[in-house]
């Protein structure tokens, strides 16, 4: 078992005929991802890398049996696209689009959640399950390798760094979830931890956090309360230890406000929960290698 993306995942790409859509459909197919449909309103009947394009997600679900949507559409239309995917019956929706108005995210995140849909993002690189060769999003396929470590991360390139280092050290991944750094994410670190907790194929968990909000502390509190770190080793890296207060470090989520959301608070919470904390992101691979005796 892997989480979110499995061998049954059938991908529809919303925004299929744009530059990003076309390029990443090619990349995903090359990785082995089962991309079954694209959607671009008004371009139904076209093909992208041999993938049929439909006018609506409902058709992609009915005709091509899609069950997982990947969203590339521009920010002003992202809310419409997510609701269309949820209403069409997609059970997983991954939103790459960045700069989505927070009131739009607030609506579609809560809607997806209420409807039992797993939403990843927005403003995220996507997800990957190397075992069933399912990579959905813009993550570079070359860095992955099947194996026992699950990774959930609020940061894109840091994920690549850490996953790349794991794979180089011969340590594969069960599931990698790029959660995105927006203030209102569809899947939080805690949501990811709960998914990984019950995944028999996951033997260790890596969490990558950054300044802003309290989702790291929330995950740590759960790990501490359930003693999960004693059952599955958990590792964490938190970026932004030197970030000043009141300055957004790159995206809307990474912001220390009046002493809240600091890296120090997050690291302390992880430590208290029995989570091993890394100083350099590149330390993680070595920690895992030693602990899992790989």
């Amino acid at each position: 078992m892997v989480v979110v993306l499995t061998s049954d995942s059938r991908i529809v790409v919303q925004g299929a005929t744009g530059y990003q859509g076309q390029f990443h459909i090619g990349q995903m197919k090359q990785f082995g991802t089962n991309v079954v449909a694209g959607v671009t309103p008004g371009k139904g009947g076209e093909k992208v890398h041999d993938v049929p394009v439909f006018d609506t997600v409902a058709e992609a679900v009915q005709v091509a049996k899609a069950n997982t949507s990947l969203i590339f559409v521009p920010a002003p239309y992202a809310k419409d696209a997510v609701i269309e995917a949820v209403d069409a019956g997609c059970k997983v929706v991954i939103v790459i689009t960045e700069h989505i108005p927070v009131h739009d995210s607030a609506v579609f995140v809560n809607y997806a959640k209420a409807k039992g849909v797993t939403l990843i993002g927005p403003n995220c690189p996507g997800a990957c399950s190397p075992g069933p060769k399912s990579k959905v999003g813009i993550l570079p396929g070359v860095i992955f390798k099947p194996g026992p470590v699950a990774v959930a991360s609020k940061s894109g390139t840091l994920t690549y760094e850490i996953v790349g280092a794991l794979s180089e050290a011969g340590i594969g991944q069960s599931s990698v979830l790029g959660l995105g750094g927006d203030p209102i994410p569809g899947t939080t670190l805690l949501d990811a931890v709960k998914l990984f907790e019950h995944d028999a194929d996951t033997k260790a968990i890596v969490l990558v956090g950054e300044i802003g909000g309290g989702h790291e502390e929330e995950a740590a509190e759960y790990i501490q309360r359930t003693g999960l770190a004693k059952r599955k080793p958990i590792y964490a890296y938190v970026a932004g230890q030197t970030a000043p207060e009141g300055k957004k470090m790159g995206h809307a989520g990474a912001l220390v406000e009046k002493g809240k959301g600091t890296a120090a608070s997050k690291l302390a919470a992880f430590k208290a929960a029995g989570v091993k904390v890394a100083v350099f992101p590149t330390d993680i691979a070595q920690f895992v290698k030693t602990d899992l005796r790989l």
Partner: protein
Amino acid sequence: MNLFEYQGRELYEKHAIPCAKGFVVESMQDLEAKMAQAHYPVVVKAQVLVGGRGKAGGVKFADNAAQLREVTKGILGLNIKGHVTKKVMVAQKLDFAKEFYLGIMVDRATRKFLMLFSADGGVEIESVPEERIFKTTIDPLTGFQPFHARAVLLKSGLDADVQKQLAGVMAKLYTLFVKEDAELAEINPLAIQRDGKVVAGDAKVVLNDSAVFRHPEFKQKDENMTDLEQEAKERGVALVQLDGNIGVMANGAGLTMGTLDALTQFGGKAGVFLDLSGTDNPEKVAEAVRLMKKAKPAVMFLNLFGGITKCDTVANGLVTVLRKEGVEFPIITRIKGTNAKEANEILHSFGLETAPTLDAAAKKASEMAKNPSAYKIVRATPGGI
């Protein structure tokens, strides 16, 4: 994006939230032209996006035209914690019987909205004891409902009439919060006047940056940004100026922050956070280098992880812009990911410092920052490509 008080007040009026009558002036001539609108006594408030303006002399009262001229003259141009006062709001001075706090904000913890109310308003909400602040969570799917007002008001001990007025303001503030794409809408103080009427005594609104395209009237310079930060933003680059001297350029916010953090392990301190973000466009690399030059760091530290974009493509892009335009500081690079080996060869043969690991690079960058002139600096090659 923080709005000025007078802009927030305009939004309050648009959504029928009761406010004191007032106007804004930009100059003394402007004041003369609008003088007749003043209902004395008035309060004159500096329009700056920084707290503590009262203590800094940015809030004064006037009982007549002469006093109004005098205090306005004193406040216009006043420097409050580095913010120069360009506008002044003149508003009716209200006679408050009681001051409350009311705020609605995006709440990361619940991924919904949070409404806060306290009967202890007029002071910084952070200074009010936790048990005196009443909170309720609003689901974006249902929006504000009357029970949300009851949840924060029924324990307040206030008169039924005041509760009713406050509940009305809450419903309107929620509408404003949603329709205007606010991250935060705050009234402090929300006050009862001696005549029993509830009125907003201040207007704080933070618009969501990502939604400004829906509110073009508020597309304005962010006063909390430096000129360079603003310029970078307009070019779609996330750049933050910090108080160190190492210019960090990396791809992705997390990796860039991680690079800053790594420097501190070796006594280095970043002066620039520059998130290259997507690196598939060579012109974006050139743009980033130009912005970095304007920040004048002692040394530049390029930390790159190549995924779908190949590292050698980026390295070639960097070399091209350096050869053509040159820089005034040495550069240390650390490149990982797809085609990193080729990239390192290109950079090394061009004479740039390369390091194999993040900690080695961070250590080297910290050393270089102490004595940058000891390292090679790539000046522009006249006529070169």
